[in-house]
């Protein structure tokens, strides 16, 4: 945490992990929006050093996300929504892991990631322009 002399800590306002979100100060809560790492510019980002094994995915290699229910169906991009469907070789059923954003992206539309609708407040999953991290 970065604390000033009055005990206020630097935080991401409203606890929103979004591009362009304001940074301010607040009372210490210990939540993740108040936790920071100091990265010296002459040091490499440690996240870039994480291996495929640590992430559990090969980087940039397309895959299906297959349900273990009886039908053996897989996740398919249908517009922006995600549905269960019979597995075909179509790119709307292919996904890949992007280590830079640490998100699962659509192979069909590589600037979109699997995302929880309404900035994480909904239960629905969709693909959306990659803007931050997996909620």
């Amino acid at each position, binding site marked *: 945490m970065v604390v000033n002399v009055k005990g206020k800590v630097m935080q991401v306002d409203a606890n929103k992990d979004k591009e362009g979100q304001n940074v301010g100060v607040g009372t210490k809560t210990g939540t*993740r929006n108040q936790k920071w790492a100091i990265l010296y510019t002459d040091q490499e980002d440690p996240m870039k050093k994480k291996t495929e094994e640590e992430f559990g*995915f*090969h980087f940039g*290699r*397309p*895959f*299906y*996300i*297959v*349900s*273990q*229910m*009886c*039908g*053996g*169906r*897989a*996740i398919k991009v*249908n517009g922006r*929504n*995600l*549905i*269960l*469907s*019979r*597995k*075909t*070789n179509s790119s709307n059923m*292919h996904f890949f892991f992007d280590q830079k954003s640490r998100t699962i992206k659509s192979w069909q539309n590589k600037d979109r990631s699997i995302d*929880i609708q309404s900035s*994480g407040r909904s*239960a*629905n*999953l969709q693909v959306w322009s990659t803007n931050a991290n*997996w*909620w």
Partner: protein
Amino acid sequence: MNSRGRVIDVAAGLDNEGQNIIVASRNNNMSQRWSIVYVDEDKALPRKG
């Protein structure tokens, strides 16, 4: 699983064509279990050529 403990789930646990995909609290049902199958290792689909 995401940082809030929610997992990818099939809505209502129904194994139907077109069934919606959601996130939900973990309950270990089959509707929350998934396999990652790399396209170049998938043997279920016939390949051309």
